[in-house]
């Protein structure tokens, strides 16, 4: 055992520096170090790509639209591209012990313009919302992720949103991974009302009955994802997320009379990774 190990270990150490990871280009060292921040020197991996997503026109709509989605990530070379679900907010793990991660999370909710879709005529616009909060993620085993987010809205809505999800992550082979699991979302009244309530003026203008949407269980659903790494550079992925609106959101006349409580999002994408080096 010792002899085998030392031979393999020696092989790792004996490889000359010039044989280190091939990089697309090398940038000069930064002229100064920023105090308290780690030096950027070393190898970095950039991932760029393009994806597309077919998603409901707005939450509660029965029609869909296609959206292009740019893909861009940058990380230290060799560091693992951590599992991400399509519904995850942008987040940074400030606390990370491997199986448990936590940190701030941010989600952008696009504005809803009433003149864009005929179903919304008379309902007025809802401005874009910025949801800020935190996430916790726990891996009881390497193949099971439990994630929860709690965010407070600003702008278009000023309510609280909580997301809970579980994903079973099964690597079929090294390059091919499938994952799937349930989702649940809870929203406060202030996060629900701007999108699902119909006041007196809106009722007159839209022809929908008045409705006062309250918070509570917002949706339950199921998502699945598949990713295939063709080679170290190219990766393709696809996903489907189904959501069933619940409670006051599902009972809103906007959903009941003009939309659907069944919300499905389908997406796919391809990305290319390359390394560069900072001296």
């Amino acid at each position, binding site marked *: 055992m010792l002899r085998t190990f030392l031979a393999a270990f020696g092989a790792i150490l004996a490889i000359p520096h010039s044989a280190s990871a091939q990089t697309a280009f090398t940038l000069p060292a930064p*002229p100064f170090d920023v105090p308290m921040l780690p030096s950027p020197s070393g190898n970095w991996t950039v991932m760029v790509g393009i994806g597309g997503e077919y998603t409901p026109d707005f939450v509660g709509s029965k029609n869909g639209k296609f959206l292009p989605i740019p893909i861009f990530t940058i990380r230290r070379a060799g560091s693992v591209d951590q599992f991400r679900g399509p519904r995850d907010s942008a987040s940074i793990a400030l606390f990370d012990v491997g199986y448990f991660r936590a940190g701030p999370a941010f989600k952008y909710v696009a504005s809803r313009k009433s003149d864009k879709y005929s179903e919304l005529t008379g309902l007025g616009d809802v401005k874009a919302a910025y949801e800020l909060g935190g996430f916790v993620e726990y891996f009881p085993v390497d193949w099971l992720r439990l994630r929860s987010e709690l965010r407070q809205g600003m702008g278009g809505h000023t309510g609280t949103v909580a997301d809970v999800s579980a994903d079973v992550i099964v690597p079929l082979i090294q390059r091919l991974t499938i994952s799937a699991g349930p989702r649940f979302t809870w929203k406060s009244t202030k996060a629900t009302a701007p999108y699902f309530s119909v006041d007196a003026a809106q009722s007159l203008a839209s022809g929908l009955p008045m409705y006062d949407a309250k918070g509570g269980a917002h949706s339950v659903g199921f998502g699945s994802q598949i990713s295939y790494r063709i080679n170290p550079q190219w990766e393709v992925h696809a996903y489907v997320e189904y959501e069933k609106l619940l409670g006051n959101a599902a009972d809103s006349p906007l959903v009941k009379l003009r939309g659907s409580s069944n919300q499905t999002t389908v997406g796919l994408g391809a990305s290319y990774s390359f390394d560069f080096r900072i001296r």
Partner: protein
Amino acid sequence: MRRRVILCVVCAIACVVLGAAAAFETRTTRLQAIKTVGIVSAIGEEMSLTQAGLVVLGNAGQSVSISAWGLDELIVQQATKLLGGRFRVQAVSYRRAAFAAIRDSAVAPVNLLRSDPFKELVRSDVTPQGLDAYIVITRARSKLGNGRIVEGVGLAQYRTLLADYGLIHALYEIRVIEGKSFDVIEKRAAAPLDNTGTMRLAGPSGPVDATIDGPASS
């Protein structure tokens, strides 16, 4: 008023540029001024055996002592040979276990805010003092799979539904610590050897055929 604001902005930019230039100069000249060095190595005390991917609940990995293998002595010997042409390398004594015991905090900002713990250890633990610099080689860490962290020297196995993949790794980082002020002049983690594998670690590693089954003692 507008002229005064522009003047202030220009002064601020000049201060930043001059400060940056001074910092750059200091770092470069500090490295160039080094003549005598001592080498500290503390990565070969134990070997980790880690399994990731489709593993059973409670399989947290294990580590075994390999201090008898003398890996650190081998590393100091090799580093001395490599550095001998440029520096006068002097043998130093230190408590290897104390260097091996230092871990990064799980809270990322703490690592940025606190003083480098190896500085203090070099100041208090390494003899002789007074060399121009001390080169400290310690364990680095990397993620493997989703929830596993591997560090230092070890064997890792990634289990999938249809196949298992083995890896041997030697994850390490090197600090150059100034011998008078004990400032960390340079700190780098060893980069991956190549980017051809689909199962990657953040440091030197290579594929192996061996699998990790049975107790660590075997």
